């Protein structure tokens, strides 16, 4: 199985977001960057599929700054074979520009599967996998939480509001992975050492201007100071009164 996995370097989910001086981006000082959590499921799935097939390749692609080589090394340490960094100074705000660069890189190779995390936890764009699929003319299933593949036929499950959708699709395909698909492995020391010797190619990329122009990045509206209604079950009567009369939500 020949599998491409597209990953992204994002601020850790425990990051306290500070707005940078430009008022449009976050202040990256002191921010810990990690592999996007949803991409970990993509990497793991690729490794399992290759192991099951007994042969093949897992290649990791990442669009990001030079520092994202570290993110790629993490994937290599868990068992991926090689990595490609599409180096940009700044990840484009317009996800279509990101998708175009990734699709151009993946084009020309026949992949059995191309995997993405279902969304990145920084920009929440939730679409680059699908855009790449469309650009490459491949079928796409998003937010996959269960996957069966038999030859060129696949069955995926994806969570929808109030249920689970069971989806038939054909390979080659682009899939975006959700939590629940698998339990990602941690890199072992041996893997970390081996990763240092695996090929990692850095290719400069030039995104277009795109059609999204950031006006401002602002902190979310402050919530007004709340109050402790009381202690224990005796406070419930007053809580219900406040919810009815003050907050008017009951």
């Amino acid at each position, binding site marked *: 199985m020949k599998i491409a996995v597209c990953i992204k370097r994002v601020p850790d989910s425990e990051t306290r977001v500070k707005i940078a001086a430009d008022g449009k981006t976050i202040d990256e000082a002191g921010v810990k960057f990690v592999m996007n959590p949803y991409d970990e499921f993509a990497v793991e799935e690729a490794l399992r599929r290759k192991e099951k097939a007994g042969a093949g390749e897992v290649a990791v692609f990442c669009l990001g700054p030079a520092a994202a080589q570290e993110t790629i090394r993490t994937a290599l340490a868990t068992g991926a074979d090689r990595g490609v960094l599409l180096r940009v100074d700044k990840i484009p705000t317009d996800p279509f520009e990101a998708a175009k660069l990734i699709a151009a890189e993946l084009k020309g190779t026949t992949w059995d599967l191309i995997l993405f995390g279902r969304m990145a*936890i920084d920009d929440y764009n939730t679409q680059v996998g699908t855009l790449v699929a469309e650009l490459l003319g491949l079928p796409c299933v998003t937010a996959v939480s269960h996957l069966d593949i038999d030859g060129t036929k696949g069955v995926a499950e994806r969570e929808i509001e109030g249920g689970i959708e*069971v989806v038939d699709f054909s390979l080659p395909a682009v899939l975006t992975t959700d939590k629940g698909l698998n339990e990602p492995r941690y890199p072992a020391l041996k893997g970390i050492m081996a990763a240092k010797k695996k090929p990692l190619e850095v290719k400069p990329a030039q995104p277009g201007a795109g059609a999204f122009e950031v006006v401002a990045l602002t902190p979310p509206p402050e919530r007004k100071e709340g109050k*402790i209604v009381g202690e224990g079950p005796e406070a419930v009567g007053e809580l219900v009164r406040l919810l009815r009369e003050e907050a008017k939500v009951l």
Partner: protein
Amino acid sequence: MTTLAVLEQRDGTLRKVSYEVVTAAARLGSAVDAVVCSSAGPEGCASAIAERAKSGGYGAVVFAATAAGKDLAARVAAKLGVGVAMDVTELSVEGGTIVATRPVYAGKAMQKVRVLGKPAVISVRPSVFTPPPGAQASQAKPESLSVASPGRVVVREIKAAPAGTLDVAEAQVIISGGRGLKEPANFKVLEELARAFGGRAAVGASRAVVDAGWRAHADQVGQTGKTVSPSLYIAVGISGAIQHLAGMRTSKVIVAINKDKDAPIFKVADYGVVGDLFEIVPRLTEEIRKLHA
């Protein structure tokens, strides 16, 4: 320029979020045409919608940011050669340009963007663009799009969640539980409270209890789960990690029930009750039942 609103149906019935899509589309100040696609093939629907968007010369195409809507919006956008302004919570037109605000970093920041795509493709977060009362019946009379071929991706079946369970992303009231519940079986206390709300409430969960396998990932609220904006969010036995707060801080009213009076959850809660949740929640359930009796 007219706006195209793409509505959502299931089993032949328009979903509630469809009225919100129409409401959001109307914010763009132009006439709104509504379409719905009932094919089991998202590729087929995407082609039909993209065709309509092109032939109708629409200035904007608006979807719901639901599981199906986000998937479809991206497919359609790619066919139109643009990206999607995804999961938008505010929408306006300033100087002839569409301006959208969307939560990023799970709501730890709000990104305001000018959407210059032609057309602009937008998806709107559920439960935000609530239609004015009474507007539903007259608002949406969608045209049903016909699909030439479903495509290579086909929804074979939908395994519905047990009757009466509501998705956290769409519920008006969410009661979420965390480690304070002590064990998975104790979530029945929250389920009873949810039931007392008469079909309007869903039970959510913190990342800690989802990672521990107590609750399904579908129920997880927070940065690696769902970002929700219900009218009432009741956090029970949840201390309030940053990634959790990020996922629920846009709720209209937040209630926290926790035994630790210093828990960070009380910092974002409008109303807090300190004490043993196993005493407090059943009492609350009783009171809510009385209101709905």
